[in-house]
């Protein structure tokens, strides 16, 4: 209940770390933040950070910020995984490992929450921001200011999750916080509230992005780019954003209802007084299933771009790809019960959803075959992005087959919540989402940085991830079939699990090497940036519009908005060039671009106050946050000077400069 009496709500000194493990986590977070601040001060980069990044409304800048935050969160949640696997490899019989149950539960809850919401969604929104406007020939997204708000709300979600390591504790109720465990009675601390508010705030950011990107794709395509001429990445983004706008409201409601139960004594999901906990599971998965398709569809889109470019062939079966994408979008709203076959529904309900689950595998299969057919008779270049694809195609197919198995209710009764399930969904998310976005980052990196990533380290990274993944999760399929359940922090020696857990532990270690290789890759590439400069804007001999810009892309994207009449428009332009067709001189017109704005950041700060106040029951703080956010919106709405103009002459100057540096004709 609300503690009105106390000015600081539930907050008191005992919220600070009370034991070594928590203290270690807190020290890392605080140390990390202080370290970054120290670096910024030492290199005198605060103003630069503020002007070039934090207040920028350029989607390319916002995209890079998303990706940077997501990568940091990847390291955080990956460390959680290392801790869990270490625990599981040694915690047998009389040995109880390095973590007690409470910490183990917080760690797996944080791992899942962070990976899905902040790594997966972060990488996705990052890439969409970077690439999608370029691919449709646009200068920006539909609502640049809203885009900034979305990023800052995402960032506040990240802050809240990590703050729980320092003040209070995180949820120990899993990444989806099922009641009754997540209700006040069994989780009386602030952990679940941290989980709720972190996701509530980040979720609103996601919803706004969905509206933004969908409107962008519908309304801001360049001349000649009809829907059926859009690149496949844009189609999958359109599908994913459709899922976002219809699924995230369900999450908002469900989180709110849980919070209302916990804070205002309501009875939505309580174990008594008319609550129905099964409704929570129903609602959260009605969001949760579309969520996984939200994550993976743009990754499929990345693969479509990568496969076509590195097979030097146009994508096979474009039309069927479009249909498959929309089939997945429509069907993903009709399978959600397969996450709770065992909750007790009858055979009729279970079979319906089991059959729908099987059906949804079909359009995904169509996509895989189309990629393979694209490769057939192509001239394949095995650069790093293509390697990520090859790893994906092997692992995803196997994991997908495991998924179809799980989709049979009778089989699922044996395997639900076992390590088989854990292995399945990690296979899909790692090989689909992660490999896809890694491929995208590697593929498009030269476009934004102006230089290529080091191929050798990319190679190491891929092989470490690929082999590491097989070692880390292969044994889990076996363990699941042997009866091991998920979230085990200790087991009896007679079960014979340990050897497999040890192999799995080694696998995670190799994945960690892969992440290290990726981070080193970035450092090495920066050091070598002069040798590996992208001087043509088109390092991979690409097919789509973004490759027609200089590298790095100027802030206005296109000096002159392109006109297309072809599905692979840049490829067509290049063919025409080699055939000697004359290039028409550019006709420059004045353009308008949004000015920087700090309001998005301020709204983020006020949202943080709302969240923190709601978590710790500090009513006046939440009220300040609400009022402040409202005032920010008013200020922005009354600001008449939100754009700046670039004259045609200046534009021509900038363009000629950029092209000279980027080596374009």
């Amino acid at each position: 209940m609300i503690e009105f009496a106390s000015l600081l709500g539930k907050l008191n000194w005992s919220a600070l770390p009370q034991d070594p493990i928590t203290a270690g986590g807190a020290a890392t977070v605080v140390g990390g933040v202080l370290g970054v601040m120290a670096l910024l001060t030492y290199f005198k980069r605060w103003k630069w950070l503020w002007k070039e990044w934090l207040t920028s409304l350029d989607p390319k800048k916002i995209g890079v910020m998303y990706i940077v935050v997501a990568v940091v969160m990847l390291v955080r949640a990956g460390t959680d995984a290392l801790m869990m696997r270490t625990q599981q490899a040694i915690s047998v019989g009389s040995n109880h490992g390095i973590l007690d149950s409470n910490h183990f539960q917080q760690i797996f809850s944080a791992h899942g929450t962070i990976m899905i919401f902040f790594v997966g969604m972060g990488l996705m929104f990052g890439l969409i921001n970077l690439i999608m406007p370029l691919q449709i020939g646009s200068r920006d997204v539909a609502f640049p200011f809203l885009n900034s708000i979305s990023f800052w709300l995402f960032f506040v979600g990240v802050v809240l999750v990590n703050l729980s390591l320092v003040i209070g504790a995180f949820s120990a109720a899993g990444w989806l916080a099922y009641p009754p465990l997540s209700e006040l009675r069994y989780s009386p601390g602030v952990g679940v509230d941290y989980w709720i508010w972190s996701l509530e705030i980040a979720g609103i950011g996601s919803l706004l992005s969905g509206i933004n990107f969908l409107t962008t794709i519908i309304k801001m395509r360049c001349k000649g780019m009809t829907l059926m001429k859009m690149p496949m990445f844009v189609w999958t983004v359109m599908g994913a954003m459709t899922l976002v706008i219809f699924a995230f409201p369900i999450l908002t409601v469900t989180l709110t209802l849980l919070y209302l139960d916990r804070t205002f004594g309501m009875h939505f999901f309580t174990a008594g007084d008319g609550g129905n906990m099964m409704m929570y599971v129903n609602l959260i998965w009605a969001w949760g299933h579309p969520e996984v398709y939200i994550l993976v569809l743009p990754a499929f889109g990345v693969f479509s771009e990568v496969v076509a470019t590195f097979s030097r062939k146009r994508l096979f079966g474009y039309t069927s790809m479009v249909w498959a994408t929309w089939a997945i979008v429509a069907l993903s709203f009709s399978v959600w019960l397969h996450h709770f076959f065992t909750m007790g529904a009858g055979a009729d309900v279970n079979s319906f959803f089991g059959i729908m689950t099987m059906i949804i595998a079909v359009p995904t299969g169509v996509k895989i075959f189309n990629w393979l057919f694209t490769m057939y008779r192509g001239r394949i270049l095995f650069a790093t992005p293509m390697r990520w694809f090859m790893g994906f195609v092997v692992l995803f197919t196997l994991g997908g087959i495991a998924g179809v198995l799980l989709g049979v209710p009778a089989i699922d009764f044996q395997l639900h919540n076992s390590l088989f399930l854990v292995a399945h969904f990690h296979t899909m998310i790692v090989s689909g989402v992660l490999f896809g976005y890694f491929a995208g980052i590697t593929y498009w990196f030269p476009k934004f940085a102006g230089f290529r990533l080091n191929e050798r380290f990319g190679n190491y990274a891929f092989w470490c991830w690929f082999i590491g993944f097989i070692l880390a999760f292969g044994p889990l399929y076996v363990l699941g079939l042997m009866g091991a359940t998920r979230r085990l922090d200790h087991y009896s020696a007679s079960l014979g699990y340990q050897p497999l857990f040890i192999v799995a532990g080694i696998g995670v270690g190799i994945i960690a090497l892969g992440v290290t290789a990726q981070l080193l890759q970035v450092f090495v590439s920066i050091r070598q940036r002069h040798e590996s400069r992208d001087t043509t804007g088109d390092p991979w001999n690409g097919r789509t519009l973004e490759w027609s810009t200089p590298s790095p892309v100027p802030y206005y994207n296109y000096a002159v908005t392109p006109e297309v009449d072809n599905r692979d428009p840049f490829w067509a332009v290049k063919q025409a060039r080699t055939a000697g067709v004359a290039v028409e001189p550019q006709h420059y017109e004045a353009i308008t671009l949004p000015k920087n704005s700090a309001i998005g950041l301020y709204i983020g700060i006020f949202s943080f106050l709302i969240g923190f106040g709601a978590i710790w029951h500090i009513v006046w703080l939440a009220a300040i946050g609400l009022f402040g956010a409202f005032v920010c919106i008013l200020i922005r709405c009354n600001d008449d000077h939100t754009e700046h103009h670039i004259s045609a002459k200046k534009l021509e100057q900038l363009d000629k400069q950029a092209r000279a540096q980027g080596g374009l004709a």
Partner: protein
Amino acid sequence: MSEHEKIVVAQHDTARGSLASYVAGYIFAVYLTVTAYLVVYNHLFSNTTLTVVIVGLALVQFMVHMLFFLHLGRETKPRWKLAVALFMIMVVVVLVGGSLWIMSNLTYRMTPTQQNNYMNNQQGI
């Protein structure tokens, strides 16, 4: 700054209403509302039929609002607002209908009072 420009014909703008459409819509909506109210107040049909009737009236009124107040029918091609609205309706039908089906099934089979009913029904099998 704020130039007080008038809206010239809004290009590609959404359809706008006319006095006739608002008046017609209002009259239809009042009629549908009062009808639903009277039907229930006077309990004119059996329980199930009543439910069907009032939900039907609500759906018709939904259409009236969409057409006469939100001018959905007057959108020029391409009809994106309509497309998104139809998709929304599909999602709502699946979400609400699906949830009702699932939850009634689950509550019947998994709650104590209901389980007694279930077990009684299963007797003799």
